[in-house]
Structure formats: C-alpha cells, structure tokens
C-alpha cells in the first residue's frame, strides 16, 4: 500500500476495524522495509526472534523507545538521500534526537499535516500570526522544537507576522495594522502554550485595562508544547480557553500533541477538548508494568505509530509521556478514531546507588 493511497483518505473517516486493517497492512510493510534497510533495526528484531510474517495486528509490532534516536543514528536510506535532519529540543548538555528525512518522507509529512490541520482550519492559506519571536527561527543555536513547529505550521500562512519581538515584547502597532488589513478574514494563530500565556495573553489583559482591545474573534489558534508550566501557574485548559476568549474574542483554540520523531502525524484537539488520532497514525496506551494494552480510562505510557516514516525506523515508538485513552469512534465532535488526553512526562526514576547523580546541574 503506497502512502499516496493512504493520504488520500479523509483523516477521521475510518472505523476501528477499517483503521486496524489499514494500519496493520501499512505498518507491517514499514517494519519489513526498515528490517531490510536499517541494520540496527534488523538486529533488534533478531534479538527478539521477531517474525513479522506472524503479525496479526499492528499492536503486536515492537516499539522503539524514543531515546534510541538520541543514542543512535537510525536511518533506512543511504546518507546521500538525506535531505534534512530534524533534531528534538534538548537542554544544553543533553543528547537530542536525530531524525533523518529523505525527499519522500519529508513531503509525506507535509501532506499529512495539511490534511489533518485543514480539518480544523478549513483549506486554503490564511494570514498568520506567529506568537513567538523571529530569532527562534533565525538563530540556529536556539533552533528547537519551537522553531520546527513554527516552520511546520507556516505552510498554512499566506502573509505572516511575528507577534513578539526578540525581547518577547508584543509588537502592538504591527499587530494592529495586520488585523486591520485582514479584517473580516479568518486569521491563523500559532504558538507554544506557555509563550502564548506569558507574552501574549498577559499583555492583552494589560492593554485591555488601558483601553486597547484586539478583536481575534475570526481567529483560529493552534498551540502545543505541553501544559507543565501552566499547571505550575494553576492555569487549567478551561481557564486558558475562557480567558483568551474574554480578552480578545478568540474562540477556536486547538491544542495539539506531536513529536519531532513522528512529524506530520499530529494529534489535534477537537471542539470537545479531546486529542484525536487520525487514520495516519495511532496511539496505544501501554501498562508500564508489562507493556500490555490499557483499556479506556487506564493511565499508561503512550506508544505512537505512524504510517509515514520510510527513511528512518520510527513507525512504532514508545514515548516517555503518560496518558489516558478516553474513547474510540464515539467523540461527540463526530470524528472517528481514538481520542485521549496527555497527563505529562513520566517521572524520572529515583534510584539509589553509590555514584552521586549530578543531573540537577542540567535543570
């Protein structure tokens, strides 16, 4: 099954049984592809005595922990075909994931992302406000998940502006002019959850007190990056939505879950505040104790599968995130597929031992 065929299917249209069949067929193919083309991956399957021909469901396929991509350079294509190496965000001193893309996989990532996001924003490009500073993209040293996210979502922007300057101050005049110019049109806004709260929302609140009000009721906001920092400020998802609406009329707000290791297959938050798996990918919640599949409502470690990766063996991965499956095929928003929520990162292990740990240096 080619990816062309898959990507032509509507993202949230398949029922559980149809989707399982599609994923099993495609992911078994990808497993074979990587087994043939990535020696390290083949070694792993060999060490497990894994026989791909006996696989009944994509759920039986091995999953590589995402950290593998930090430790090893895993790819299933010759060096010459690498057109882009994506790296994950990482604090100084920590290893970063290295994801090798060829033309094909890179283009499939983009096509997939367009298909998924268009379900929420409508098709066609829109004037775009990036709620971040320009240096995130320009400065290679700072280039990170933030930069990659902005670049990835920029394909939905026709005319783009950055809402913040490099001191993280709101560009009030520019923003005003931009909104006036595109008045009445749908505006696309993108940014990272905490940045939006800290440097955009809070500033809008301050301006409102001065009598300066921005009208973003025509906007659609997509944001990602996790809730950790907002939780520490005691801001819930409901607060985030409600207060943005109160300050600037913004109503269409969608969180997303995604990772550099499976770019393209993002999990968008629907109108019912649920993250959704499209037919291009899936989440399987795994019991930490034995990696068995968790049922609805059970907290576990998130495995992600993606039908895209052909240039690197990243079609089935174990994340270090914890989450809960909320349901399948029956979200009130009408989309088929699994819907779930993320609880956050797994806690670091507290282990004993004779050697002192110095990890706190990197925090």
């Amino acid at each position, binding site marked *: 099954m080619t990816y062309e065929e898959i990507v032509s299917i509507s993202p949230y249209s398949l029922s559980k049984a149809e989707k399982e069949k599609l994923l099993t067929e495609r992911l078994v193919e990808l497993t074979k592809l990587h087994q043939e083309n990535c020696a*390290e*991956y083949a*070694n*792993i399957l*060999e*060490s*497990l*005595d894994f026989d791909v021909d006996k696989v009944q469901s994509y759920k039986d396929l091995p999953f*590589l*922990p995402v*950290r*593998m991509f930090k*430790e*090893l350079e*895993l790819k299933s294509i010759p060096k010459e075909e690498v057109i882009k190496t994506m790296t994950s965000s990482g604090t100084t001193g920590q290893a970063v994931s290295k994801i090798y893309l060829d033309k094909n996989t890179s283009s499939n990532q983009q096509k997939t992302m367009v298909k998924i996001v268009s379900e929420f924003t409508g098709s066609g490009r829109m004037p775009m406000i990036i709620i971040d500073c320009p240096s995130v993209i320009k400065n290679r040293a700072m280039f990170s998940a933030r930069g990659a996210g902005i670049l990835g979502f920029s394909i939905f922007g026709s005319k783009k502006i950055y809402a913040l300057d490099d001191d993280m101050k709101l560009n009030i005049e520019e923003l005003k002019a931009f909104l006036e110019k595109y008045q009445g049109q749908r505006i696309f806004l993108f940014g990272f959850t905490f940045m939006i709260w800290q440097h955009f929302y809070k500033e809008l609140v301050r301006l409102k007190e001065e009598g300066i009000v921005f009208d973003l009721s025509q906007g659609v906001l997509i944001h990602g990056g996790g809730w950790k920092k907002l939780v520490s400020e005691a801001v819930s998802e409901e607060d985030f939505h409600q207060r943005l609406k109160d300050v600037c009329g913004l109503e269409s707000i969608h969180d997303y879950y995604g990772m550099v290791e499976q770019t393209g297959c993002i999990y968008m938050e629907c109108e019912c505040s649920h993250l959704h798996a499209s037919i291009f990918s899936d989440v399987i919640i795994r019991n*930490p*104790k*034995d*990696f068995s599949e968790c049922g609805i409502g059970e907290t576990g*470690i998130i495995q992600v599968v993606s039908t895209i990766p052909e240039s690197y063996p990243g079609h089935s991965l*174990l994340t*270090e995130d*914890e989450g809960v499956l909320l349901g399948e095929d029956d979200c009130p928003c009408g989309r088929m597929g699994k819907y779930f929520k993320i609880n956050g990162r*797994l*806690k*670091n*292990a*507290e*282990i*004993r*031992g*004779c*050697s*002192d*740990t*110095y990890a706190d240096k990197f925090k």
Partner: protein
Amino acid sequence: MLKSGGAVILMPINLNKKVLEKATYLTGDADTAAMLPTVPAKQPFAEDIIEFLNDVSREIMKNRAAKIYSDVVTFGFWIRKASILKLKERYDTETKDIRMGRGVAFHIAPSNVPVNFAYSLVAGLVTGNANVVRVPSKDFPQVKILADAINKVLEERPEMKPYVLLVRYGRDQTVNDALSSAADTRIVWGGDQTIAELRKSPLPPRSGEVTFADRYSLAVIDSDSYLALENKEKTADDFYNDTFFTDQNACTSPRIIVWTGSRREEAKQLFWDTLHQLVEKKYTFQPIQGVNKLTSSYLIAAVKPGCKIEKRSDNLIVRVRVPEVSDQLMELKDNSGYFFEYDCDDILELRPLCDNKRCQTIGYIGDSDVLKPLIYSGVKGIDRIVPVGKTMDFDLIWDGYDLPALLTRTVSIS
C-alpha cells in the same frame, strides 16, 4: 627552618569558622570543627571508642523507629562490641611498633546511600582518627536515626565529641577547602564526579586520600551448585539484597550473570522465576524504569549482533544474553533489574570484563577457587570475591583498599 627562596607554610591551628558555619551540624558545631587540627589521635581500637560504638549500637537497637530500616539495624549490629573486637583481632600483631590514627579523617559520603556515611565514620573511628563526615544532602530518615543515637551517646561521653562531626552542606568548595586543609586522610565516596570535585581542594603534603570511584560488579553462578542448593527462596532473597535493594545500582550490584556448569538453562529458569516472585512482592517499580530497561536492551541489541533479549512476562526483570563479554559491555549496563547473561565455558573468557580497574566485586554461587586463575592472569580489576548475598557487606578492606593501613601511621621502634 627557613630555606632561601622558599616559604614557610604554617598549618593553621584553627580552621576558618566563618566558612565552617556554612555547614549544618548534625553532631557538634562549627567551633568543634574549627578545632579539628588540635584533636589528639588515638590508638586503633582504643577502648573508649569500642565502648562508644557499643553504646551507639544499644541506642539504635532500642529505638523502635529504627527497626523498619534493615540497613540501620545491620549497622547497629555491626558496631556491637563483640563484632568490633572480632575486627580488631585481624589487626592484632606482635610487634614493638606502635600504630596511631593519622589524625583527622574527612569523609564525603555518597548522596544516594543512606547509611554508608556511618560505615565510613566507623572506619575512621576504630583506626583512631577524629572524623568529620559530610552526610547525604537528601533527608534520609536513616541519617536522622543514626545522628540521634550518636548525639545521645555523645551527651554521656562528651570527650568523644571532637571525634564525631556529622555535617551537611551543598557542593560548596570553600567548605571542602577548609576541611581538606585539616585532613590527614580524605575519604571520598560518591564516584568519579564527586572525586573530581573534591580534587579541586588541595590536601596538605603529608595527607593521603582514599577514593571510591565508579565501579561495576558481576556474579558467577555454577548451575550445578545452584541446583543443588536446598533453599532457592533464600538464594533469591540474597540476590535481591545484592541487586534490587539498591536498585541494582550500587558499585557492588552484579550487572552481568555469568553461568557455568552443565545445567545452565535449567538453573536460569529456576533462578529467575524464584527471583521474579520475590521482586513482584517487594520491589517498588517505577514506570520509567520499564522504558529505561527496554531502551538499554534495544541499544545493545542494535549495536551488538548476536544478543538475545529473553522473553518476559513483565518489565520487572529484563535479561539480555550476550554472545561475548567485551571490555565495552559495561558501557551499556543499566540498573533496576537489567541483567546481561553469559554462558561461560572457561573462566578466562571473563578477562576483558575484569581487566578493567572499574571491575570490583564478583558474587558467586559455587566454588570461589575456580575464579582464582582469573585473578592470577593479571587482570587489573576484581577487588572482592564474596558469596551471593554478601556483596553489600561492609568490611575494613573495601574496594581493594586496606582502610586500617591507610588511616593509621606506624611508629617504628627498634
């Protein structure tokens, strides 16, 4: 004597109290610490020290709160008079020479093991030294129990106060500098990074240093001997204490199990099944540990063809059968129930693993004599060979160091 061109460096009589006040004192105070250089050394195994330790032992044993901590109880038992006298016997020699403590022992305890500091302290005490011990910064209840017991006895025996200083401070080089300047022996636990940190603080010329660097350990199990053992649960319990009790992350914890003998597969099955039952009951499993062990097993499988990841029903014990023991194997080790296994026909096959200064303990089941050819082959590692279950037992000879020899000086008299 003043030499031309040189400078006379006078040892400070008292240490800088301002600096010493940066530490918190679980026993004693900054004033006592400042006077450390003036405290007289004692003879090894001096009577007042043995009595002091015996009193501390009694305090620990009668404390109900201590009973739930097996490590505290083990320590309390170890410092009983009878037990210390037994240690003393080993050092009784018929000679005219006199042995004395070197003076001041400055100990840096590891931050992740609650009672290790106390063992280090006792090694310094029985060898006649005044001790200042940096205890773990983490608030282990065991540390408090021990400090309370020591304080109680110090009230009854105030003359011992200058010999037992327990301090707590962060990574502060000024305090390290001050205490190092007074140290006749510096004992550094906590591995390579802590050693590197302490080495920034100079020691006086005549002072010595004992460093406990990062180490790894292994177990050698003779399958026939194991199968002949009557009580497999007891063996599992012993092995659990060697490994899971410290998240298999102590320097003494076996990371690889080497199987010898004629009934390996049978022995493995029984050994791991029995252990698994115990781990399921006793071990507090953290979700990330399962992810970590999966990662480690796939990493070695990816880069070392021929590895087999053993089938398992859950993530408590992860085993990887390796086709050979190379010297880099231990760079791929992990903890919390992650084991390499190797089928061994000739003990000398372990040379690459043991010819490394990081190789510390071999825990064994069977006959320890079979390991001797390995040592005689001239490997640079292996400092201890102990039965499975005893890898954590502290002894005054540790990590290849004879602590009483290093913590005393000999006055030769002829």
